[in-house]
């Protein structure tokens, strides 16, 4: 079943108004009783709608759901392309490619993604960066960081690694040694294993379908 926003909006408001009017029959609209009923029904009905929408949303946000990939998406090439029908950019999951020199099994990929998420939480990444647009604003948004041209253009030559993922892992272990401008990232003492896992998480996150956020990532208006 496909849910439309307008139907949900109109239905929820209609039901609240309808039930309020039915159950407060006989009360003048300025009486406390009328508004008490309105308060009760708006709380209950809107909560029911939220729970209903939550179940439906899980079809999209579970791993392997409509919008969120399985962890082994790290074995694929990922790009961000304009969908002309939607008018915004969407992630494109392309052909298979090696990640840290190998193809990861489903279980290995899941363990790596899990480690990546734990590392991201344990280092408080979100209190400087934004992830999926949420967090603090002291450092760049990481939603599509895997696709950032700076890794190839600047970081790979500086840390002297042959692949993007290795360069990212090397940089993440010593960000204070390779500052990119006056505001440095502190050294968060990532182990090699943790750094790899974080890189995997960034790649995984870039494959999430985010309704076009951030818009035209990596494409400047001039181009």
């Amino acid at each position: 079943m496909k849910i439309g926003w307008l139907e949900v909006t109109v239905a929820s408001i209609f039901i609240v108004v309808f039930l309020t009017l039915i159950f407060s029959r006989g009360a003048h609209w300025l009486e406390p009783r009328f508004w008490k009923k309105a308060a009760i029904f708006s709380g209950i009905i809107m909560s029911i709608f939220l729970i209903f929408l939550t179940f439906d949303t899980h079809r999209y946000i579970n791993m392997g759901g409509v919008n969120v990939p399985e962890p082994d998406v790290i074995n694929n090439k990922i790009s961000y392309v304009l969908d002309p029908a939607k008018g915004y950019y969407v992630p494109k999951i392309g052909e298979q490619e090696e990640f840290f020199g190998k193809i990861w099994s489903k279980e290995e990929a899941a363990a790596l993604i899990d480690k990546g998420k734990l590392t991201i939480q344990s280092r408080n990444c979100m209190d400087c960066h934004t992830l999926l647009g949420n967090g603090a604003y002291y450092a760049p948004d990481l939603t599509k960081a895997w696709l950032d041209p700076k890794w190839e253009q600047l970081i790979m030559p500086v840390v002297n690694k042959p692949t993007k993922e290795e360069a990212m892992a090397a940089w993440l272990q010593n960000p204070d040694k390779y500052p990119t401008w006056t505001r440095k990232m502190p050294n968060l003492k990532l182990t090699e294993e943790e750094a790899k896992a974080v890189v995997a998480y960034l790649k995984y996150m870039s494959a999430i379908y985010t309704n076009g956020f951030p818009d035209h990532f990596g494409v400047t208006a001039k181009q």
Partner: protein
Amino acid sequence: MDKLYESQKLAIWYFAVAIVLFGAQILFGLVGAIQFVNPDFLFGVLDFSIGRMLHINALVVWLLLGFIGAIYWFLPQELNREVVGIKLGKLAFIILVAAVAVVVLVYLFVQIGPGDIKTLWFITEGREYIEAPRWADLGIVAVALVVFYNVVATVLAAKKITGILGVLIVDLGALFGLYLAGMFYTPNISVDQFYWWWVVHLWVEATWEVLIGVINAWALMYLLGSPRRLVETWLYIEVFLVFGTGILGLGHHYFWIGTPEYWLGIGGFFSAMEPIPLVAMIIHAIYDAGMHKLKTVNRPALFWLFANAFGNFLGAGVWGFMQTLPQINLYSHGTQMAASHGHLAFFGAYVAANLTILYIIIGELRKRGLTPQKGILYVLDSKAWRYAYVGMIIGIIGMTAALLVAGFTQTLQERAIGGSTWQAYINAQEHPWFKEAMLWRLGFGIFFFVAYLILIYDILTIKPVPVKEEEVEAEAEVIPEKA
């Protein structure tokens, strides 16, 4: 009221700790503001991530302490009896304060841990706003249950329930219950953020707003003698509007986290409606104050109540609306515009409300022992509260305006033009508009801190001054009743 209830003594303790944490919040905020101007400041000692976490967590905790204090203050007055289980309440307070101290020390000196589940249990959960480690989460839930028990058991023992208490009990149940939604780990960041917003949004934009409605209802009855029937009717209208718009307004956080597209419409529509209850709150406060011609025995509390009504509407309502539709939010989300909105909204909606209650408590405490004289009214008043009041409002508006300019610069330069990359981010941060805005923010931040110091001075010294009853009347009669 002759003697203080034990519950009210506990309320004073809650507010004492709250107001100290308010100071800590401002200081950690200043550290962050300095780092935006000079990134080397305390680099490697108190990095931005740690200072910022303390800034926000101090805010959340001191506001909650204030809310709980307000409940303990008004509850025995509402029911004319001591709160049931107050010893347990005091024990919970001590545990809470000790737990907060331990969490802060760990934040300051341990800061981060290895990437495993133990770090989440004992150091930090690393989820913005609710970073507190899991053990502290359990402690918070336990304390919340004690507060909830105190309220419900007292209502049962008094065999009396008012409309305000009915709303309070339902709201507290929802508020504390929602916290549980933030207490799990998942490797799936979309699911993580989906329920994380249940805590963050449904607290700040639903259950906290209703709690403020409850506290303001008590404050209006106390400060202006508004009739209960009127106050309760307004409270129901506010609950109707807050829950009616705020619950599905949650959708404005579900635009870009992997959630289906229908949330753009649902979230956009309902969050655009969210300012309506805030307008209702303003009308309510102004109408009541007008009816009573501003006549009150507690001037600072009454004026903080106004700051609350207007600040809530401007900060939460207007500033929130500015960036809530998905078509602008696509570019403004995750920029300093959100920080601008956050500063004014939290100050207006919650800081001002807590200060209202604080001054009500001070007024009650200091007027004790004064002998009533015929024709004389004791009005809580001083010069200092005016300076603190105006200073804080100028400080917060200055910070909000500066952050707004910085946020617009980011929205346009980094997002719309630059394509959101690492370099686009740097370009916007280095833009003269952004850098200048950050200097202004720091300046107004210092200004705000000075106003806080004046506030502390005033809290310690303000006392009721005797005013002839006719003078209070005369002041209230500035506008002639018959034109």
